[in-house]
């Protein structure tokens, strides 16, 4: 291991009611890429927040270059050369791209007035963006960028800080394959320049491709470490979960009734020129792959009626269903598990019970008044069936881990006996253990005759779970692959359409 740049010793952090970090240690060498993994709530982000000066540790020491470092504020961390890409996107859509990159470190002129020298900022911003393969002017309003490009801007921001250590907390959760690829290349470049990186991801495949070493946290404690040669899926999972995970991906017996659920000529507002048509069989899992911004989420939202389609027909069991709002879809038993569960899937400040019964509260009423007992019983039953880890159904969803939050979203729909269930990025930001459970649930549902449409940006997941795969590119459906035709290459070929790499470079 190269000489240690960062040494963290015995960090403990207690939040009221939770011991988030318990005597955790971590060392990062100069020019080393350390992968940091662990289940949801293992304490990864908490540890990083301490390094980044967002919060303070209760105990423990941080040494940089062998000297004790006091990191009390974010500015301290930046001054010490620590760059931080947060788990949540933290960009400002009322500033331009360059303004976001240089926020807090703007080049100034004009003495005490501290005026922003914008020209300089634009040119310098463009340099950093180019390094990431992004050819956009620094004056572009950030709001005009796709989510993926916004994420790239955040990465450019970390680069621009001339950081010696860059923390990347799930940088790829909003990226698809090509951008992820690009990022991994950048990570390797940075390492070559002697920059150290702490890389957090639930996509374990990325670890093998970029990490020199993987550190595993479990329940706020160090659970072990894997050297370069030892990094493999099984070993990582074993350290994270404490046991081996069986039947990771489960394939089903295939469609029981083809053309059970049909979408014909669907046009969405984001891509009004393109028509999308496909069908999903009863008991089938249709994967929907594509690059970020391919328009998959729009299709899902149009089918579910939250963003009513411009045109098109949706047929279920041979009958046309008119969908103008989410209520129409719900009445037809077509449900959506949205990609942003905390914004669209759950009212996080409300309890598990209230969230589960939200779509069909009328069921639990007598004379228009909610019967608490009935409701609690139903919510409890759903939680038990899905094995949601929660102290009680009265806990606020806010307090659950990502995987359990996702299960609550599921619970809300499963109580309503779905016919069609659309999953949009069902495992985004979810740890392996919870992922496996969600795949199993999805498969169980299919076996029970539900038609499932699964949008995912993780090729492994698409390949591992789907019975067939549809691929989209810039709003259009470029092809549907049967199970046997599916391969990474085949999907990527369709996903980039006619001009490969265009969207990424």
């Amino acid at each position: 291991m190269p000489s240690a740049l960062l040494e963290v010793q015995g960090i403990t952090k207690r939040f009221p009611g939770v011991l988030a970090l318990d005597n955790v240690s971590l060392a990062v060498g100069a020019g080393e890429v350390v992968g940091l993994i662990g289940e949801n709530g293992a304490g990864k982000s908490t540890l990083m927040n301490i390094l980044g000066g967002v919060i303070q540790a209760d105990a423990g020491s941080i040494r940089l270059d062998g000297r004790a470092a006091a990191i009390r504020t974010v500015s301290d961390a930046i001054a010490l050369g620590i760059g931080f890409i947060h788990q949540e996107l933290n960009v400002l859509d009322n500033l331009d791209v360059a303004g976001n990159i240089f926020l807090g470190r703007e080049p100034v002129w004009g003495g005490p007035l501290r005026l922003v020298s914008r020209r300089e900022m634009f040119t310098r911003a463009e340099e950093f963006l180019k390094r990431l393969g992004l050819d956009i002017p620094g004056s572009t309003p950030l709001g005009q960028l796709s989510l993926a490009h916004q994420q790239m801007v955040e990465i450019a921001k970390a680069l621009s800080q001339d950081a010696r250590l860059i923390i990347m907390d799930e940088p790829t959760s909003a990226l698809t394959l090509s951008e992820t690829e690009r990022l991994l290349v950048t990570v390797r470049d940075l390492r070559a320049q002697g920059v150290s990186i702490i890389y957090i991801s639930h996509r374990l495949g990325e670890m093998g491709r970029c990490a020199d070493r993987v550190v595993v946290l479990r329940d706020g404690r160090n659970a072990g470490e894997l050297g370069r040669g030892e990094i493999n899926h099984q070993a990582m999972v074993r350290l994270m979960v404490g046991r081996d995970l069986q039947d990771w991906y489960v394939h089903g017996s295939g469609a029981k009734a083809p053309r059970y659920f049909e979408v014909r000529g669907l046009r969405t507002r984001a891509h009004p020129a393109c028509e999308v048509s496909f069908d999903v069989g009863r008991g089938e899992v249709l994967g929907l792959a594509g690059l970020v911004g391919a328009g998959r989420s729009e299709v899902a939202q149009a089918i579910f009626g939250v963003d009513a389609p411009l045109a098109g027909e949706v047929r279920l069991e041979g009958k046309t269903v008119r969908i103008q709002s989410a209520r129409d879809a719900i009445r037809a038993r077509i449900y959506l598990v949205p990609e942003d569960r905390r914004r669209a899937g759950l009212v996080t400040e409300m309890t598990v019970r209230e969230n589960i019964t939200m779509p069909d509260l009328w069921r639990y009423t007598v004379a228009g008044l909610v019967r608490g007992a009935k409701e609690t019983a139903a919510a409890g039953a759903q939680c038990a069936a899905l094995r949601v880890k929660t102290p009680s159904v009265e806990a606020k969803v806010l307090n659950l881990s990502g995987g359990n939050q996702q299960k609550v979203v599921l619970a809300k729909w499963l109580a309503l006996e779905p016919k069609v269930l659309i999953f949009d990025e069902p495992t985004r930001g979810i740890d392996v253990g919870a992922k496996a459970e969600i795949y199993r649930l999805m498969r169980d549902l299919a076996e029970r005759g539900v038609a499932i449409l699964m949008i995912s940006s993780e090729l492994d997941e698409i390949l591992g779970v789907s019975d067939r795969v549809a691929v989209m590119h810039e709003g259009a459906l470029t092809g549907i692959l049967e199970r046997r035709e599916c391969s990474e290459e085949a999907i990527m070929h369709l996903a980039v359409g006619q001009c490969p790499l265009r969207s990424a470079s």
Partner: protein
Amino acid sequence: MKKEVGIFVLLLALCAVVSIMDPRFVSAANLQNQARLIGMYGVFSIGMGVVIVTAGIDLSVGSIFALQGVLLSMMLREWHWPWPLAVAAVIGGTMALGTLHGALVTVARLQPFIVTLCGLLFYRGAARFIASDEAKGFGAEGFGMLRELATGSIAGVPMPFVALVAIAVLMWVVLHRSVYGRYLFAVGRNEDAARYSGINSRLIIASAYVVAAALAGISGILIAFYTNSISPSGHGTFYELYGIAAAVLGGCSLRGGEGSVIGIVIGTALLQVLRNLVNLLGIPSSLEFAVMGAVILAGVMVDQVLMQRRQSRLATKGPREPAGAPKRPGEC
């Protein structure tokens, strides 16, 4: 529920102190007077609370009182409408305005603050214009049972207070026990998530303004008969602020999704007792506002401290909050 306990204790303590300093506070006459005022203010404050639960606000209440008061007087005294018709027209009219506010907020997607600020200006102007800047009133006439209904008493309990109790019970059930109430809180917390659960969030939000307007309509009639005379330029000025203050004291968060009917009623009572105290203890009238301002601030700060202690887990974890959650400081 715990939230209300704090302010209830404050109210009791205040009452105890006042009655020790001036035993006339607990005289039947004074209690009746206070009950009447609490009733009048409480009814529209509950409506304000409903709007605030949906993360909205209604600044137009005071001007609506002026407009409806002027019209009520004209209907009864100048156009000689039968009182049930006039009452129905007035409440229906305010509800139409509420519908308009709701539509502007949900369909035109304007900010509630702006919509109702325009209402504040517009209705005041309309009231003054309609009344040609003259005070309107009800003279000494009874208008059938209407005056009795608005100002009388049942077994010594003033009618406005009876109305408040009835409305509070009804609204408690609606807000805290019905499906509609649950949806109000849900859209106030996270409109998108509510919409993704199949709730017609626009309808729910718009309806809150209609409910608030209906309650303002009832309150307005009580207030009109209390003063028995409506000066179009002054009637009801600042009442929206009293309503907001009562709701906030009672535990409503202006960020939406929080609040309770009981809290609002207690908040109203607290403000009223404060004003009574200023008068009874002979504190100069000029300080009345200052006392109110100080007590509201103190109440909100204590609430904030208690909440932080109780929920410090959730409160401190800024970075983990969902996209739709509060982003601003000033949690309350």
